[in-house]
């Protein structure tokens, strides 16, 4: 287990791009300390900000009490990273595989453009979780995101594939412009859920204040798919989904083809 312990709260945002199990594996502590990262846009050595304790395994632990560490797990494809503390913005951005486990809150833009692997957020997530990378047309395209707490606005915006599970609440425009994939929010969400949804499933544990007018009520249905999803979700967030396969279905967004769905479980 290689451990990086933040010495002090940095005086700017730190870009942690490249600090991954696959890039640090097999290197000595001195060598790892010379890895270049960026503080407020200026290059500096990893050892200037972190105490480094290295070993041979592909497990990386980052101990931090600051939420200024951005791009944690960015582009990660293998191995395991545990963040003991909060994560900054863009955690798991473009992640392809492996597991990133954040024992704290995550900032905005987590799992943007994620393509595979597992992102666990034990606390809350910021806005644009699972959304598109800046300039990209599609959001998260694979993998699983499991959030124990709440998520911010525009959860899963333009999401293309994959699964996002949120035990708490989500903000406004949850599942907006969803292209495909599955988004589960057990604690309910803010306004305009599924706005612009093309295909894919937005599954809500609580009925929102209003379903957008461009969704049509399909009534109460029995979906064996929910049994399958329940079993899968249990391995990430136990108790998140009920074992029942009953849901109230709303199909839409009719302004965008109407092939998607909002399922309200309550």
């Amino acid at each position, binding site marked *: 287990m290689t451990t990086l312990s933040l010495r002090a709260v940095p005086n700017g945002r730190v870009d942690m791009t490249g600090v991954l199990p696959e890039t640090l594996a097999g290197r000595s502590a001195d060598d790892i300390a010379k890895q270049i990262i960026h503080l407020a846009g200026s290059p500096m050595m990893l050892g200037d900000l972190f105490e480094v304790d290295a070993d041979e395994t592909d497990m990386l632990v980052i101990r931090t009490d600051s939420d200024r560490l951005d791009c944690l797990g960015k582009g990660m494809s293998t191995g395991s990273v545990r963040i003991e503390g909060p994560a900054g913005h863009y955690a798991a951005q473009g992640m392809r595989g492996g597991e990133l486990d954040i024992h704290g809150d995550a900032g905005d833009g987590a799992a943007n453009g994620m393509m595979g692997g597992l992102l666990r957020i034990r606390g809350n997530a910021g806005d644009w979780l699972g959304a598109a990378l800046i300039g990209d047309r599609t959001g998260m395209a694979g993998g699983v995101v499991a959030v124990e707490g709440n998520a911010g606005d525009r959860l899963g915006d333009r999401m293309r594939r994959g699964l996002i599970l949120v035990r708490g609440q989500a903000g406004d425009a949850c599942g907006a412009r969803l292209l495909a994939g599955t988004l589960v929010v057990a604690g309910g969400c803010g306004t305009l859920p599924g706005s612009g949804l093309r295909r894919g499933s937005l599954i809500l544990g609580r009925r929102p204040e209003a379903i957008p007018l461009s969704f049509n009520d399909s009534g109460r249905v029995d979906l064996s798919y929910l049994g*399958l999803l329940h079993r899968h979700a249990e391995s990430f967030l136990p108790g998140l989904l009920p074992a029942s396969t009953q849901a109230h279905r709303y199909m839409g967004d009719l302004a965008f083809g109407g092939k998607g769905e909002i399922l309200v479980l309550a």
Partner: protein
Amino acid sequence: MRRQQIDSPCVQGEGGVIINGVFIDDTYAEAFGMKATRIVITADNLTWARHAANAAFGFATSVIACGCEAGIECELSPTETPDGRPGVAGLLFAVSTKELAKQLERRVGQCVLTCPTTAVFAGCEGEESLPLGKNLRYFGDGWQMSKLIAGRRYWRIPVMDGEFLAEEMTGLMRSVGGGNFLVLARSRSRALAACEAAVDAIARVPGAIAPFPGGVVRSGSKVGSKYKALPASTNDAFCPTLRGVAKTELSPGVDAVLEIVIDAVTDADMRVAMKAGMDAVCGIGAAGGIVRLSAGNYGGKLGQFHYRLREILA
């Protein structure tokens, strides 16, 4: 599997092998390499899963005219199925991948998709795969939805009771079909009772099915016929009604013969299933009217797998 207790020890000598008074012929069953797949059918309750399975695996006794051989392998509890509902696992065997794919699609499309509350899933992995819901999805007429869960794709097809959920692909396995043994008895009723015990024993072997009605065949066949159009015809050497007019394999005292045909996922499964079935028959023994155990083969020239009865029972 509970092992049948055999009172009499196996006797081997100049007179051959005799177990509990049952003479074991020095012969072998000749079996063939086949392509197989396993599917899991679930439903709201076991009754409807069975309805779907019985329909899908019905009329699948022999590849000679059914296209495939199929049967229920076992029933599954909700904890054993992908969607947490009770289900049934079944095996389908065919002579080619193409024929298996055709039969699978037809049978699932006509018998599972149509059956209330059911869903269908792959029951095996394989180096190659077969379409399961891949083409059936078009029944949804554009309203079907795809879901990718844990790397496996599923299709949700809208139907009148909600949705038919079908996994896109299932695995293709190289397997063995046509393992068999013949039960020669003093009467039809005694042959049937022994075969029922054998089928019960085989049903407890994972990876094996006995595809004929009740697992038992009365119309054992030989290759060819006096009629050119027929590829197979009655096995006259084992027909008691033809004694005296055709060359017979029946020893004195044998008045009825029944056959058990087994298809299995692997060679090892076949051996276990054949042994289980024959042990059950031998357990009934001569006291139950069983005279001999024999097997069907084609001189060893057609099938890649030979199962010697005495070797399996040793």
